[in-house]
């Protein structure tokens, strides 16, 4: 749950930041770069502490779950922005030029031509982010979110069966990761287009 919501908000934020960084004027681009660098340059744990323990001192108090959602989304957004920026910049400039030559304005060109390609190219990196995020949710237990790891720790503390319980938790994460990977693989295939992203059908093994 935490993972899904965070990755979706992170994606929206990431798209905005990436577009701002690549196409924005100096000020917008500067703001986006600043945000991305600050988030990527500081530990997620510290970011969560600031949101949960720090914000109440300026009058904003968030429930543990909201703080975790916000923190993970803001964090993931910065990383996703960088994946997407890479994809956008890998698209040859002729695509934009051709769109403009048809009479599209800049926004139409980005929306109809650049983004659909960039998002497809980003899917593999994005799937990596999803898996990272899934496991990073375990950090949220520190700000008292009752997620998987927190529950495990609680049960372990009362039963003293640390090995079994944490091994169980590890297996649950592993299974979730496998399921997510499969889903993304399906998505990747569904949206794949000849000539965009990694060439499908080329198998170096067993060649």
């Amino acid at each position, binding site marked *: 749950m935490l993972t899904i919501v965070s990755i979706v908000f992170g994606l929206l934020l990431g798209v905005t930041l990436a577009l701002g960084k690549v196409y924005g004027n100096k000020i917008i681009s500067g703001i986006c770069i600043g945000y991305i660098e600050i988030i990527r340059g500081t530990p997620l744990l510290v970011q969560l502490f600031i949101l949960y323990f720090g914000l109440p001192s300026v009058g904003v108090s968030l429930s543990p779950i909201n703080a975790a959602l916000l923190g993970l989304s803001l964090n993931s957004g910065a990383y996703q922005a960088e994946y997407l920026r890479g994809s956008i910049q890998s698209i*040859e400039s*002729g*695509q934009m*030029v*051709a*769109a*403009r*030559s*048809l*009479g*599209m*304005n800049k926004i*139409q060109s980005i929306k*109809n*031509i650049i983004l*659909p*390609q960039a998002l*497809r190219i980003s899917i593999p990196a994005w799937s990596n982010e999803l898996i990272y995020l899934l496991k990073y949710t375990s950090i949220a237990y520190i700000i008292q979110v009752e997620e998987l790891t927190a529950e495990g720790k609680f049960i372990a503390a009362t039963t003293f069966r640390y090995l079994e319980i944490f091994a169980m938790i590890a297996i649950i994460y592993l299974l979730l990761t496998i399921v997510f990977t499969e889903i993304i693989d399906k998505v990747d295939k569904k949206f794949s*287009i*000849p*000539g*965009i992203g990694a060439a499908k059908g080329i198998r170096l093994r067993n060649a």
Partner: protein
Amino acid sequence: MHMLEVKDVHKSYGKLEVLKGISFTMDKGETKVIIGTSGTGKSTLLRCINQLDLPDKGEVWLEGEEIAGRSKSINRMRQKIGFVFQEFNLFNHLTALRNVSIGLEKVRGTEKEEARKRASEELKRVGLEEQAKQYPAQLSGGQKQRVGIARALTMDPVIILFDEPTSALDPELIGEVLEVMKGLAGKVSMLVVTHEMGFARNVADEIIFMENGVVVESGPPKQMFTNAKKERTREFLGKIATLYGEE
């Protein structure tokens, strides 16, 4: 009033002055071919006409209206100017049909169905109705370029600019693209930068010879090939003729 008027266009990149004051005019239905050695600003000139590159000085007028890159009207003006690229620049994520229809759909706001119907007519015109559902990566170079031409045609442009449309093609694929272009001559105004002398000789109403950012000489093909006024024009055309094995 001429359909297209290019008036004293200058363009520099840093200290390098690529265009040093180009002027010429075109009328409806005319085909003009620009020739000249590489790096003399031919492509830059085309890009200055539809303001993909902004000229430093000079004006471009189409049907009595100035094309100004910084003005609000630029996207409306560009719809009237088709552009066919050396590297095709087809939209990689769209099928051949959608490549051709997207301009109508997104820029003109035409109904999807109507736009696609029109697009498939244009694909038929360039002999590619069977390839409508294929993606650019599945097409040959010649097919890609014909899609590029169809994409320009669907917008009903006043003029189409061709920037070395066959230079990136394998020799055996050049013919199919030139055939399509020949079929358009007289129906659509075309301004073509090319090294294809056969096309220039047989299809052009006028040949413009450019060198070092200026127009050296221009005239009807017959005059240019047999009776050029400037020594430099004769020399260039002589070299090209030897190179391409003509007469």
